[in-house]
């Protein structure tokens, strides 16, 4: 039975790898986990262990060649009959991913963390051995702490997770800084739907997986509450209409409503600093700097680039920064720094006419503002009905640390700022 050896993905943003050296020749025996080849990417060299024991069959990718991740680079003839090994390393194939996933070939998918020691058995037995890797006590503790045991490395016999392993893991998680405190892991999935002939199974992209994990992790972490305010945007809309063409001519950059909302948020975040905080264990961390995350829709997902020190920019500087970040996001040219360190997020679910949505907090932040569609509506003003431009703003906040009264005062402040807009767009 031959198994494919795949080019591992050594990180989220890594799309390809170069084989620098084969450590075994065709026809040579290799044991499981023995270094098989070396790859190079971005000044990093990595030794890749063999996924199984066997004899190296055909080498399909020669030294010096660069191929996309998950490309088959060689085949190994398994020794002994371990049953169907199939395509070892294809962690992206949904039905197989839970049962086989060699350590290095699936880097970045976070699927196999801490499971190396338990892989010794044949893959068919893996699922049941997974259950046996921890005592009932440890499993109960894991459940209480909401921790996925597959993240915990076992040091006991056969890779069993001992109580000490678990406590050490807990401690480690507790001491990590806030953004890394809770590794994004979905809760145990419900029984998967049966796939018939008329169904098509498509593996999630890495981005989709990350989004899925983050969303579920956030829901589990924060006590989400959403408050919705209707804001009379007539004044801002008037300025927007009047100035748009001139602004774009003079400054060469598109004017949108987003910077107006962000300016209002900055003012209110300074008045209510708890909204610009994070939770770290039993500590509330107040951030003195405001770094604004802006959700940008991409084909097949979304990303949240961050305008760092957003409060230090004037309106024009803000418009330029947003424009530039959004453009880079769509061209997939964001750097790691561009998407890190946000302290609050704004998102725009109103593009297709949605009145408002209840956004999910971008961890480890405690608030996110969703901007609904901007439209004209009849509004009662001093017992008269007028046609005004309105928008619904929905703030989701973490009720663990933000009280409802504070959240609403914050939103009243945002509303007041926008309804009484006084800023010059060129200041």
């Amino acid at each position, binding site marked *: 039975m031959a198994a494919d050896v795949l080019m591992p993905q*050594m990180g*989220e943003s890594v799309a390809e790898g170069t084989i*620098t050296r084969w450590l075994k020749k065709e026809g040579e025996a290799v044991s499981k986990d023995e270094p098989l080849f070396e790859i190079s990417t971005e*000044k*990093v*060299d990595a030794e890749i262990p063999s996924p199984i024991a066997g004899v190296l069959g055909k080498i399909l990718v020669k030294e010096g060649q660069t191929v996309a991740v998950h490309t088959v680079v060689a085949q190994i003839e398994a020794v002994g009959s371990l049953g169907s090994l199939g395509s070892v390393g294809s962690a992206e194939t949904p039905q197989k991913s839970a049962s086989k996933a060699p350590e*290095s070939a699936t*880097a970045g998918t976070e699927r196999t963390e801490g499971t190396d020691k338990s892989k010794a058995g044949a893959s068919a037995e893996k699922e049941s051995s997974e259950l046996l890797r921890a005592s009932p006590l440890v499993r109960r503790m894991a459940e209480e702490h909401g921790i996925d045991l597959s993240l915990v490395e076992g040091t006991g016999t056969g890779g069993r997770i001992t109580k000490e392993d678990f406590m050490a893991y807990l401690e*480690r998680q507790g001491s990590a800084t806030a953004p890394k405190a809770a590794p994004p892991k979905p809760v145990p999935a419900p029984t998967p739907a049966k796939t018939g002939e008329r169904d098509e199974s498509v593996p999630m992209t890495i981005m989709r997986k990350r989004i899925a994990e983050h969303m579920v992790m956030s829901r589990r972490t924060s006590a989400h509450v959403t408050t919705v305010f209707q804001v009379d945007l007539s004044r801002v809309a008037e300025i927007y209409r009047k100035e748009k063409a001139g602004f774009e001519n003079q400054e060469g950059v598109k004017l949108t409503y987003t910077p107006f909302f962000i300016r209002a948020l900055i003012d209110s975040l300074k008045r209510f600093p708890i909204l610009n905080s994070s939770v770290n264990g039993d500590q509330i961390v107040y951030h003195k700097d405001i770094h604004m995350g802006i959700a940008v829709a991409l084909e097949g997902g979304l990303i949240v680039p961050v305008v760092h020190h957003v409060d230090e920019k004037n309106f024009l500087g803000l418009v330029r920064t947003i424009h530039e970040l959004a453009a880079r996001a769509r061209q997939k040219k964001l750097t790691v720094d561009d998407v890190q360190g946000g302290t609050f997020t704004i998102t725009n679910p109103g593009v297709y006419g949605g009145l408002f949505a209840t956004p999910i907090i971008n961890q480890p932040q405690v608030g996110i503002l969703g901007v609904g569609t901007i439209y004209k509506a009849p509004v009662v003003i001093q017992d008269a009905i007028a046609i005004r431009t309105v928008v619904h703003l929905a703030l989701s906040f973490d009720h663990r640390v933000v009280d409802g009264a504070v959240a609403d005062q914050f939103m009243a402040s945002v509303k007041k700022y926008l309804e009484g807009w006084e800023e010059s767009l060129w200041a």
Partner: protein
Amino acid sequence: MLVEKRKRNEIADTLLLLEHPPVITMGRNAKPENLLSTPLELQQAGIEVVESDRGGDVTFHGPGQLIGYPILDLSKIRRDVVWYVRVLEEAIIRTAQDCGVRAVRVPGCPGVWVNNAKVASLGIHISRWVTSHGFALNLNTDLNFFCHIIPCGIASCPVTSFQQCLGKPLDRSVVEQHLVQHLAGLLGLEKGELWQRMS
């Protein structure tokens, strides 16, 4: 040795900070033509040449350089080599900032740069997600040593040091403290957890 111990989980994540005698190392991807001097010239200059299993091309290590070898189990931190390279760069950039040097990244050229001159080089090896090798930061390095090589295989790549940027030498232990702090912070480890060993 320590790497093997880390793999067996016998030691915690570790950062070695040290200084090398003059030596030129050839990384896995090193091209011999990037070594400019003859073996005799190098011998006369007191420079040893060794081959290394780190990534990257040829580089020089010597007195006045702060060498950092983090031995970390990335499978417990984050399985992402690019992220790890960015973390090392970021820690050095922040350290530079603490010292009053404005350092940046150059897209496509891993390492840390000041005014288009390289101040820190990276070369990393990973096996089973345990890292070895690391970075070399020019603090008070005698930059004349670099005339023997084309650093990192980038022709016309000038090198610089904190000393050259600031016009005065820096206290090594102060820089080390900044570096450990930033690195620990970025990796999400306790400063004490990333215990230092000097040699």
